[in-house]
């Protein structure tokens, strides 16, 4: 009986938490510079991600776009009641994309795409105030997709293709707020899984109402990444049957939620292009992150997330300055999928205002360099991680409260090649 009680005390296992909204919308420098719009824009091979149906409208036979961004993002946490403060020292994230399309004939283009729409990398100081929720996390997922784009008429095309995902996760947190070994070293667990694969698809359509007015819709399916036999490594565990934590394997699944985009673009006075996209990300698939440990002595870990579907509103504008230079600006409002009371510090994300800008420089007829930057503005937010016991009766952890402030500056460079 007493043993059970102690197990219960130590049973707040592994809140593996992969980030509040681990969607990383950096899938093309030209689109990003325009507020990451693109579902109704025919510009370059970035269409492979934004709307594969549009690939068939690209003028050249071969189109390639590739690039990468550098994500400088840090989060500060503080709690004024207890005078606590911490700041992440996260490594610079480098999401990338490579797209290529080949026009087979007048009505068919084929393509290949590799991109990283989901990921997260956050490093808090070890043993910080919220270390029972996360010390550090690194989540990566690479999407590789084969594409077909079919022109049905001059006005309508459809596209899409299967997606292969290869993902990995490495996550460390302390077992709870106080458990240590005899020397006071905090007991912690690292879960690690790599080479996890899964499949999905995307499908899209484009409609050219007039020469200047386009509409687009794109849907990318939910992909559940299921980690099997990942490694769970326990450190600094007291030598006691009361804390039966031993290295073991775990199974867990994590949704890469479905995303629906609809948008419109309008060409104005030849030199101007206006674009609007609306994204709906179906985050409600992410109710709880559950880790099932192979060792039956170790209680399974249930970590409520309770995300909600979230919308993003994107606005972009392009101006052809001259033969060489194209300038772009944009803005978006990104609604957080994290609900109040479920604000966990893996990627504490509240609503963001994204301000974007960038340019393309045509080096020659075939080759151009695309640059973009994104500045995300987050409001300071007072939030807590305190799952509602009515919805998640098995969660036993204490609430974790504080004030968060996030910053994100993301420069990126890419190239466009057409032949």
């Amino acid at each position, binding site marked *: 009986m007493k043993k059970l009680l102690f197990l219960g005390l130590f049973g707040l296992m592994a809140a593996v938490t992969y980030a509040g909204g681990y969607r990383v919308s950096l899938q093309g420098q030209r689109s990003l510079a325009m507020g990451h719009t693109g579902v109704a824009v025919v510009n370059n091979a970035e269409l492979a991600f934004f709307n594969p149906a549009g690939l068939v409208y690209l003028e050249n036979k071969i189109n390639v776009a590739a690039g990468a961004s550098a994500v400088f993002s840090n989060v*500060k946490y503080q709690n004024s009641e207890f005078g606590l403060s911490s700041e992440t020292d996260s490594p610079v994230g480098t999401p990338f994309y490579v797209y290529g399309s080949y026009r087979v004939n007048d009505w068919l283009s084929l393509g290949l795409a590799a991109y990283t729409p989901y990921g997260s990398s956050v490093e808090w100081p070890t043993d910080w105030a919220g270390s029972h929720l996360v010390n550090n996390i690194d989540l990566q997922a690479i999407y590789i997709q084969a594409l077909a784009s079919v022109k049905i008429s001059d006005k309508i095309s459809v596209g899409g293709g299967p997606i292969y995902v290869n993902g990995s996760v490495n996550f460390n947190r302390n077992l709870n707020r106080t458990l240590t070994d005899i020397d006071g070293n905090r007991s912690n667990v690292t879960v690690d899984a790599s080479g996890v694969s899964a499949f999905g698809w995307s499908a899209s359509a484009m409609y050219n109402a007039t020469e200047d007015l386009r509409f687009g819709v794109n849907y990318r399916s939910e992909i559940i990444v299921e980690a099997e036999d990942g490694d769970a490594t326990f450190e600094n565990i007291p030598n006691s049957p009361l804390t039966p934590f031993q290295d073991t394997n775990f199974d867990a699944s994590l949704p890469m939620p479905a995303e629906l985009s609809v948008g419109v673009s309008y060409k104005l006075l030849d030199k101007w292009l206006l674009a609007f996209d609306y994204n709906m990300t179906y985050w409600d698939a992410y109710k709880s992150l559950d880790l099932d440990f192979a060792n039956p002595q170790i209680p399974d870990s249930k970590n409520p997330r309770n995300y909600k579907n979230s919308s993003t509103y994107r606005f972009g504008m392009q101006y052809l300055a001259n033969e060489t230079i194209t300038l772009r600006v944009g803005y978006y409002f990104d609604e957080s999928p994290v609900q109040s009371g479920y604000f966990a510090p893996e990627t504490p994300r509240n609503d963001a205002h994204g301000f974007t800008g960038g340019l393309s420089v045509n080096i020659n007829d075939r080759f151009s360099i695309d640059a973009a930057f994104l500045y995300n503005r987050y409001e300071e937010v007072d939030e807590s991680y305190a799952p509602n016991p009515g919805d998640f009766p098995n969660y036993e952890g204490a609430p974790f409260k504080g004030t968060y402030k996030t910053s994100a500056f993301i420069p990126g460079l890419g190239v466009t090649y057409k032949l």
Partner: protein
Amino acid sequence: MKNYFKYIAIMALGIVSCEPEFDNPVDEKDAYTNGEADFSRYVALGNSLTAGYADNALYITGQENAYPNILAQQFEKTQDIEEFTIPFMSDNAGGLLLAGNQITQNRLVLAVDANGDPSPRVYTGMQPTTEVGNVLQGPFSNLGVPGAKSYHLGFSGYGNVQNLATQSANPYFVRFASSPEATVLEDALAQNPTFFSLWIGNNDVLGYATSGGTGVDQTNNTDPTTYGENDITDPNVFGSLYSQMVQSLATNASGGVLINIPDVASVPFFTTVPINAIPLDAATAGALNQQFSAYNTQVLPGLVQAGFITAEEAQARQINFAEGQNYVTLQDESLTDISQVVQGQPFNLDPQTAALLSQLRQATPTDLIPLTSAGFLGTIVGDNPNMVNGVSVPLGDQHVLTNAEQSLIRNATQKYNQIIAGLAQANGLAFIDANAMLNQLANGGIPYDGGTITSTFATGGAFSLDGIHLTPRGNAVIANEIISTINETYNADIPKVNPGSYATVTASNEVQ
């Protein structure tokens, strides 16, 4: 063209240098305030509670989580302070060595036996390495000395290794006294503290209590050099020494904290073992009652009739068992010794029975059994199943703190606490009612963000495995109480700590 690249590079640089900033960052010194107090040199005086002693030993993590160190960390959020120095032990095993020989036990840890039942056991996972003879270089901000009584803080020679043999020195103070003849108080004053805390006097009654009242109440004996380890200190001795200490500390300091003495009966050391700890079935109870029948119905009334004891005492000495839980039996030194008289006419009892009955009585709900006697109750004497400790063999004085002994402690504690409260008021110092606080822990507990902290042994969160000293979480609770009192007294704004982030007891099966 080159210009464009230049702009991109500048843009990227600007991006790297931007950091998130709060409107009101708490990690800047103006976020909180020290008010009228100056914490730049804070010195803590006291005993084991101040040193961070826990689980029957002093060890590093206990020292780190002692309330003075918690306070110093919070003080630092209001102003720049000098480093709060601690005479750290060498390890987390806790035992002391004197010339290589272990003189105090290692810490207790929560171990689990083959049946899955947890209990406190002595940790053996590593050898103790703290040698008393290795004197540490001070000065030290935490001057808490485990075992110190009020009058020890002014004892010259209390830190002299030569005096350990005569027990007039303390091995913990030997480790860090600035010189063999320096007193604890001198070592404090030499640092010219700007702020101090004083929590002393617990051991002036605690030794008496934990020994089951084997010592002497020294009230009216004003010479502490004649006191034994388990005696109760005369409140006048306490008062005059305590007031001298407060005067000398307060003279040059901006302020200080005086902490009063909790009622020892509220700690799990005395509240964990039930006084009716003896389970009996109907047959055994009946047989025992048979044995005591002549004692209850003939011997006791006969003694009253002979005027040897009062009717009241006879009533108190009745022995009765019943099916279920029964009160233990004990020898109570406050009762009349009847061992001689019952050997004579008309009782004619044999010497062995007479010795058993000499000061026999059955416990009442107001008697207390020390935690350390838990394993003794119900054991059998000399392989004789009829000789059961606490039943047929009464418990000795050291195994029970009787109600009469408790009232001696209560009287002394009350007087100490009046003195402490009076001096706090007279000197404008912050006064912490630790007595009220520990009573609250024992009666309902203190809520925190993970539940309620109570005095319940091992699981309540406040008390370490020795049942007397606080866990880190218990220290956090005390520290919070001190912080709110300082905030009120000195018009300061010091943030509290979250008790939920502080540990309780440590589990380990590395035990003998």
